[in-house]
């Protein structure tokens, strides 16, 4: 059984009189520990797929199992609880809470877990150190550069130790140097921590950091649908 299994996954919604289908009958399996890049033009369904994997959006039809859990049948609250332990999400625009410091932003997901204050502090400090921002823990987002904000966002995604990390254009808002730093960090985290990482990107250079790249076009995969450590890779760091 693969870590991620999508069967005939489809997403359709209506906007005015138009019916839009960003994802069509998608079949996909991802093995645990894979670093997968999803590429494709705008509107190809990359972000829709990522949102479905995160349980942020719901498929119109099809099945989606992650680590053996069928998530399409979960309630909204159950999905949130599942995400709090199973998924880390990195956004293109970081989306840190502006009134919280870097430390508090990273600590945020831990508030959902039954942990002592001391244990929360230990994990938060460790994760901030992991992303190289131990000395910026008391800075607010407005006091950080874009690259530093994204590192905080990555730390926030990692702090609960989820098996699946989803990243939506994590370097899309960064300059080349900062982007390289972020991708080096993500690749190292994948390599050292063995996380399954699914990343959406427009940038072929960014995709080279992944074990494998899949292309989506008009809601369909145009690359092999089973990916993992043993599968033939199109790219790599």
């Amino acid at each position, binding site marked *: 059984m693969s870590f991620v299994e999508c069967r005939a996954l489809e997403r359709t919604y209506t906007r005015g009189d138009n019916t839009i289908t960003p994802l069509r009958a998608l079949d996909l399996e991802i093995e645990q520990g894979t670093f997968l890049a999803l590429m494709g033009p705008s509107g190809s369904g990359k972000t829709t797929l990522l949102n479905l994997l995160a349980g942020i959006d719901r498929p119109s039809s099809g099945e989606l199992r992650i680590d053996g859990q069928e998530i399409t049948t979960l309630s909204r*609250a159950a999905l949130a*609880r599942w*995400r*709090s332990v199973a998924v880390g*999400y990195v*956004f293109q625009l970081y989306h840190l809470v502006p009134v919280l410091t870097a430390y508090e932003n990273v600590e*945020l997901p831990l508030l*959902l877990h039954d942990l002592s204050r001391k244990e929360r502090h230990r994990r938060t400090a460790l994760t901030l150190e992991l992303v190289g921002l131990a000395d910026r823990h008391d800075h607010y987002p407005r006091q950080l550069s874009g690259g530093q904000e994204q590192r905080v966002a990555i730390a926030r995604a990692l702090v609960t130790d989820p098996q699946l990390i989803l990243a939506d254009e994590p370097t899309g808002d960064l300059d080349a140097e900062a982007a390289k730093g972020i991708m080096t960090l993500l690749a190292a985290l994948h390599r050292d921590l063995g996380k399954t990482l699914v990343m959406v990107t427009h940038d072929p250079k960014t995709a080279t950091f992944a074990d494998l790249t899949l292309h989506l076009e008009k809601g369909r995969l145009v690359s092999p649908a089973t990916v993992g450590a043993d599968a033939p890779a199109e790219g790599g760091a």
Partner: protein
Amino acid sequence: MIRFAPLVTKRLVRQPLRTLLTVVGVAVAMFLYCVVEATQAGVTRATAVVAGDSVLVVYRENRYCPFTSRLPQHYQPRIAQIPGVAHVVPMKILVSNCRASLDVVTFRGVPEQDFLETTLPDFEIVAGSAEAWSHRSDAALVGDALASRRGIKVGDRFSAAGITVYVAAIGRTDELQSRNAAYTHLAFLQEAAQRGGTGGVVTQFNVTVSDPERLDAIAQAIDAEFAADSEPTFTQPEKAFVGRAATDVVEIVGFARWLGWGALAAVFALVANAIVLAINERVREYAILETLGFTGATIAGLIVAEGALLGLLGGGAGAVGAFALLSLQTYSVSMEGVHVEVSAGPSLLLSGLVASIVLSVLAGAVPALRVARGDLAGAFRT
């Protein structure tokens, strides 16, 4: 939920201008509400006849002012012999101002014997003595509210309504009208009022009945006794008398009830406005929280808690402010020689706090539910 409390407080503390403006607005509205409530409570205390009330006021029929109510003092024994009457105190009332005012001095002249037997037991003497009152013809026992409002001390001489009295004692009492009056010897007040003219004329009789349940029947009997006299009487329970004498004040305070409702509406609107504006700014932020694993219920709880905290801070400040103001200083609206006291007790503080918290929770609840049920994926597309 308690572990998320720092999230709510940090948001309020780290957005100080927004928090301050909302809290100040709520505080002002709640202050207004509490003052209106205290005034209404004062009117109720002064005018609502309740079971157990045993005092009637006998006034000149068709007269509404102490200057025009003139009754012969010799009515006293005729009233006293009416069955059910326990005690009759003839009283001369002299006021510094007949119309509605915040600072009116009311003199009540009573015979010494009646004073010692009926009036004095209602007082706890806090300064001076009853003996000093008995020994001087121009002596006055001043109610604590009046003494506090005017800064009057034992040994002072103070003037109002054209007469000057010596302060022989200051007394504390729960009797609202007595708290705001100065008791003098009846003869002294009669002489002073008439400038050496006729004695034997009083403003009213305060009649204590032995059975409170017969209050109305005894009032009718008194009025029937003097119906054919040259000075007919109109008798009613003391609180009803206050309600009639202070009609203008009662009506104004009744109208002020709308002001109180308006103040509550302002509390609701201010908190709702602050929350709705905040939510519109934070649609994506709440979506981020849900992506991190916060459930809709938890997020809604955070929003409601933020509203409740704003309400608690603002409402608390307003209610405490009103409580402090009305506790430190005694305010009494007076008219026709009767007093409606505006005062605050702990219940006012509590009701102000509860009202502001409840309204704030309600103000936050609808937007919170909207966020909790909103389209999560759609929030990222806005």
